[in-house]
């Protein structure tokens, strides 16, 4: 069964903090919030279309870059910012998620609500696993993600 809410971790775990979104999604899953599917989206881009459709809302975890931001900073992107593909998402699929959402829309299966929680990376070197500094900030990302998803769960009445 497809859950009404999707938490999507994006990024490539082979480039250290590039994979922070995937790690955050995994940590989110450990909170065991009902009505949520947690998916490791890697860097699949348009291939994620089947995963995002038929949802009430999609939350993206990703590495992010923003003006004047410092490594470790947790950044929340609102609905429109994610859809516009604002060049803040740092990973391989940087433009991908905005395109996936637009393609879903065009295909007649729009995703009603979207948000993203990103972290500014400390390192993008080749290597498996995120940096210890980033690792220490993952729970802060997850907290912001949980707030958003819990708000969605209050706002959206899901038919049983």
């Amino acid at each position, binding site marked *: 069964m497809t859950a009404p809410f999707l938490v999507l971790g994006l990024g490539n775990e082979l480039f250290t903090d590039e994979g922070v979104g995937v790690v955050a999604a995994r940590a989110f899953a450990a909170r065991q919030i009902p009505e949520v599917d947690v998916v490791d989206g*890697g860097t699949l*881009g*348009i*291939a*994620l279309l*089947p995963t995002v459709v038929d949802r009430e809302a999609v939350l993206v975890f990703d590495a992010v870059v923003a003006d004047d931001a410092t490594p470790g900073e947790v950044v929340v992107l609102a609905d429109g910012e994610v859809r516009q593909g604002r060049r803040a998402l740092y990973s*391989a699929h*940087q433009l991908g998620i905005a395109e996936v959402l637009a393609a879903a829309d*065009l*295909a007649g299966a729009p995703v009603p609500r979207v948000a993203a929680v990103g972290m500014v990376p400390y390192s993008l070197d080749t290597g498996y696993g995120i940096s210890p500094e980033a690792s220490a900030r993952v729970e802060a990302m997850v907290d912001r993600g949980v707030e958003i998803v819990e708000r969605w769960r209050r706002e959206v009445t899901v038919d049983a």
Partner: protein
Amino acid sequence: MSRIVVDPITRIEGHLRVEAEVDGGKITDAWSSCTMWRGIEKILNGRDPRDAWYFTQRICGVCTTVHAMASVRAVENALGIEPPLNAQLIRNLIQASQFVHDHVVHFYHLHALDWVDVVSALDADPAATADLAQSISAYPRSSPTYFAAVRDRLANFVSAGRLGPFTNGYWGHPAYRLPPEGNLLAVSHYLDALEFQRKYVEIHAILGGKNPHLQTYLVGGMAVPIDPNSQNAINAGTIGRLRGLLQEGLDFVTQAYIPDLLLVASFYEDWAGIGGGLGNYMSFGDFPLGNKNPSMDPDNLFLPRGIVLGKDLGTVHPMAPTKIAEYISHSWYSYEEGDDVALPPLEGETTPNYTGPEPPYEFLDTDAKYSWLKSPRYDDTPVEVGPLARMLVAYASGHERVVELVDTVLTKLGVGAEALFSTLGRTAARGIETQVLAEYSLALLDTLAANIAGGDLQIHNGELWDPKTWPDEASGFGMHEAPRGSLSHWVKIAGGKVASYQAVVPSTWNAGPRDANGRRGAYEAALLDTPMADPAQPLEILRTVHSFDPCMACAAHVLDKDGNPVVEVQVL
């Protein structure tokens, strides 16, 4: 003369850059560069070789399965492990459906936009579009009402300023030639391809476990339980479900993809004389017919192994893995023996040596090192890999179904076999291959069902699972045809751990730079003599590069002859 640069916009993903010199409205020379070092192989050192596939499937952002497959085969080859027939059949099924999925997505979501003017579709007459659709195919969604609805939906998007996935096109470019009705038909099927994709991925969910990254690869077999009496295994119900999904996929290919391809091709026949390139084609062959690793049993493959040289379809040359070697003369690496030798992958070295300009820069020094890709060569010869190479090797080998389909397409377009050696030929070969493999996937499923019905439930060979059974040192390779072309993984194992690992990926064969002898790679050769209607909108470069199915997004920055940016357009 001016130099055109097609360069990445993103720091991570965008790693393909093309520089081309244009003179008299034609490309006179071209250089293909990968501007990002990955060096992922080093992550494998010291790890358990049985886990290598899990890491390698993250090498490529978009085609994960293929690296898992090549890795498992390499380790099995090194350790002399043979998977059971059921596992081989399921691997083939995953692979065949991956091809069908990827090729359909490539055609409609990436490459079609090089030929189809989305904005022009707004001018189409729905009734005339329906007439056109019904004249080329029995595809059921072909009524005037349907096309009117698609046109209206598209119009809403455009009027709201939301072109979404179509934002980056060169709409209105003079090199677009389809009538509005042809464009509307293609846009409609673009949307239907999204629907196709949504359904078709269930095949991988059934056979691969957790979607979207497959979790069921296993050295020695697959981690997919087979049990006719269990709800949570491959049983009669799942086989029935798979058959339905595979048949729907085949119907979409037969009724939409192939007719659309022929329609588009009929308006662009001059592209059957453009983009030919090297004229040398290599296929490792794939889809083993028995349970042997194709690395060990190259004569027993559904798609044959071989090499076609100099566009001569009269001779298929044998292909031997030992004749693969990589140059780094124009690549940002150094070899201990010097930078002008070629090393076989098992002896490969990955020592970075960046000598290029500090970004941001205008041009690369293409006389020196200019790419992070190595230059693989077969028997010291540059070769093209991918669907065209596979179909040419199969055609020249007398593969019955491939010969039949290739000849049908050539006849319908009224062209000879020489038309195959081109950008259009590359695009047509991908469609033909999709048809062949969509059909073959159903045959594979029948074989699997019959094997299970006969009582064979074995899915894993665990005899050599325990590292204590392994030799102190071992080495091997895994050959695999990925949708984009020939992929090989090369592993050395010592003391139960990975001692060295090299992956020679399709994009390296096709997008690699010149070698020590100055011979161009496949992209570089294919771009020669390409006409350019408007250097400020390098649509023609994208047509040829996209015909190879590069796996990265890229952006076009066009510079005038003084190096000043005149336009910057982001391109999918």
